[in-house]
């Protein structure tokens, strides 16, 4: 297990290095000139050159990327400003190191991701299991019908319709928004409730459909027939044997989705104005804040890569066949 983790971590570091290089080249090779934007209306060539130098974008591209990497490990200077050791760049729009802003924004993204993940797993897997065990019955048809609508509805549409009905008209749910759980736990949970439900509903559908088909497949397997023949109770068969086999593909999907959520659920955060990584990215686009955008992409891809490793580690825990190899 330890060797596996070390090998995968090294692989992940390599992937992140490549992604950061590609992102850097894509963002900074193109002629959109952040210096020109920062320079403003009374721009003189000297001033432009000074700003370019301060931003560190007057060197050739590969030197720039080298400085960027150097900044992550040793910190770097932007003109008079010092950006300490894990320096992911400096946002001249916010006048703050990129990492600082990312750290400020991450708790909101984390809250949204974890809450939605709990709901998605509980209801998605639960609904899928029930549908599989009552195959062809009204319960199955109803839950699959709901799942289909959930899979087709858009976050920004569903979120605002639900907000309109349950917050603005009926006032059953509190206003959505993010408050730090440190300052008010109930305020935090209340404000996150609608975003959690919205992000979950859209994904529950996929999980319910996926769990159902995976469970039906598992129930057809020979080992399930074997334990049935052995005389195990139906629930013993479902929970102890079929479920375990059926969960492996679901966990893969969950890992990828959790990685996506942790990298910032862009649409949900924008719909409910939650100050997370995804909202930060959208705002940075509006402000043409390239270093900040670069930072959000790096956070999001790190989340993806880490989630992938976690999924593979979970495989080993669940599936004895993987452990052996």
């Amino acid at each position, binding site marked *: 297990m330890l060797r596996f983790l070390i090998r995968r971590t090294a692989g992940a570091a390599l992937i992140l290095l490549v992604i950061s290089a590609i992102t850097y080249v894509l963002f900074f090779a193109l002629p*959109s000139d952040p210096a020109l934007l920062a320079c403003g209306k009374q721009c003189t060539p000297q001033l432009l050159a000074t700003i370019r130098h301060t931003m560190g974008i007057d060197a050739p591209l590969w030197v720039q990327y080298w400085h960027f990497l150097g900044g992550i490990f040793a910190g770097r200077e932007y003109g008079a400003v010092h950006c300490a050791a894990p320096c992911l760049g400096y946002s001249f729009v916010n006048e703050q190191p990129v990492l600082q802003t990312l750290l400020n924004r991450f708790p909101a993204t984390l809250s949204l991701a974890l809450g939605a993940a709990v709901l998605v797993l509980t209801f998605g897997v639960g609904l899928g299991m029930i549908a599989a065990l009552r195959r062809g019955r009204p319960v199955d048809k109803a839950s699959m019908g709901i799942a289909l609508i959930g899979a*087709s509805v858009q976050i920004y549409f569903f979120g*605002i319709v639900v907000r309109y009905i349950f917050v603005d008209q009926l006032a059953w749910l509190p206003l959505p928004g993010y408050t730090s759980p440190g300052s008010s736990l109930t305020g935090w949970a209340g404000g996150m409730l609608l975003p959690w439900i919205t992000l979950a509903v859209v994904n529950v559908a996929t999980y319910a459909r996926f769990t159902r088909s995976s469970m039906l497949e598992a129930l057809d397997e020979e080992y399930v027939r074997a334990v049935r023949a052995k005389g195990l109770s139906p629930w013993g068969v479902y929970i102890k044997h079929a479920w375990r086999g059926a969960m492996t593909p679901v966990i893969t999907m969950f890992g990828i989705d959790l990685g996506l959520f942790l990298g*910032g659920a862009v649409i949900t955060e924008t719909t409910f104005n939650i100050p997370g990584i995804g909202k930060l990215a959208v705002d940075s686009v509006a402000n043409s804040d390239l270093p900040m955008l670069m930072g959000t992409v790096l956070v999001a*891809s790190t989340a993806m*890569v880490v989630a992938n490793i976690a999924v593979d580690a979970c495989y080993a825990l669940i599936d004895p066949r993987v452990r052996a190899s």
Partner: protein
Amino acid sequence: MSALLTDDPPPAAAAATAALAGRSPAALAWSRFRRDRTGVASGIVVALFFVVGLGAPVISRLYGKNPYTTYGQNQPGLLDAFGYPVGPMGGMSSHFWLGIEPGLGRDVFTQLIYGIRTSLLISLAVVLIVTVIGTLVGITAGYAGRWIDYSASRLIDLILCFPATLFFVAFIPVAQSAFVSPTQPVPTWMRATTVVLVLSAFGWASTARLLRGQVLSLREREFIQSAQVIGVPAHRIILRELLPNLWTPILISVSLAVPSYVTTEAALSFLGAGMVEPTPDWGRMIQRGAEVYNADFSYMLFPGLAMLVFVLAFNLLGDAVRDALDPKSSR
């Protein structure tokens, strides 16, 4: 005995098969599809969307309005003092079937049907590019094997590691600046092209991975191996032996891709990274609708419902197509 070894059946047998009406797999799939009532109904709904989308200019001419004119501002009495439409459901009337837009006072119905056009054209372009590139890469990697397969697979892995939505939102405006100087306005066709190119650049990887897997398993089957043994050239094996067996997975991936790109395009426009004013677009309409939903709920309701119906119908159609092509699959 010799009849068993040749491809041509003896005359009597040929007559018998003709009487039994030898049906191609496509004909079998079609007859299975026709029996699926949900499938046919959703197919009709999807077809309707295509007709309305492509015929939008004709419809809007018959209807007598266009999606750009600010009727509410030109004609007094349509918008109230706050810029919200007068009358029920966002100013619905016999003149403006689905009401008018708050603020600018444009016609909702024509915006909606032109919006289908925008979404469909962009997503169909992406699906076409993604499928062609994905198929080419998938078949090449799966069939060639060795280092070609290895490098293609690593590239696919890498692309699938990119956080898609966030990257699109971040990269599309940057990519646009490559073509147009930041001080100039970006022409509409340029925006659409950038969206198509960026979505395609990252979209082909999943199709390629799917087809590579299919080709890997097909490659080991007897009919491919015997073709290789008797010296059939590689391009013939790929075109005549492999490709006919790949139509099913290709069609299935297309049926999943179309609704997914329609929603991706709308989501990008909602986030402000896709199509912008004044191009009619569902995502852009919902973005505006989300700003005014409390005063004029219907302006976001219509594009939202239209998209829900389209995606739902397309998903049902996709399920039916999958069932028809693969009778073993269970729903």
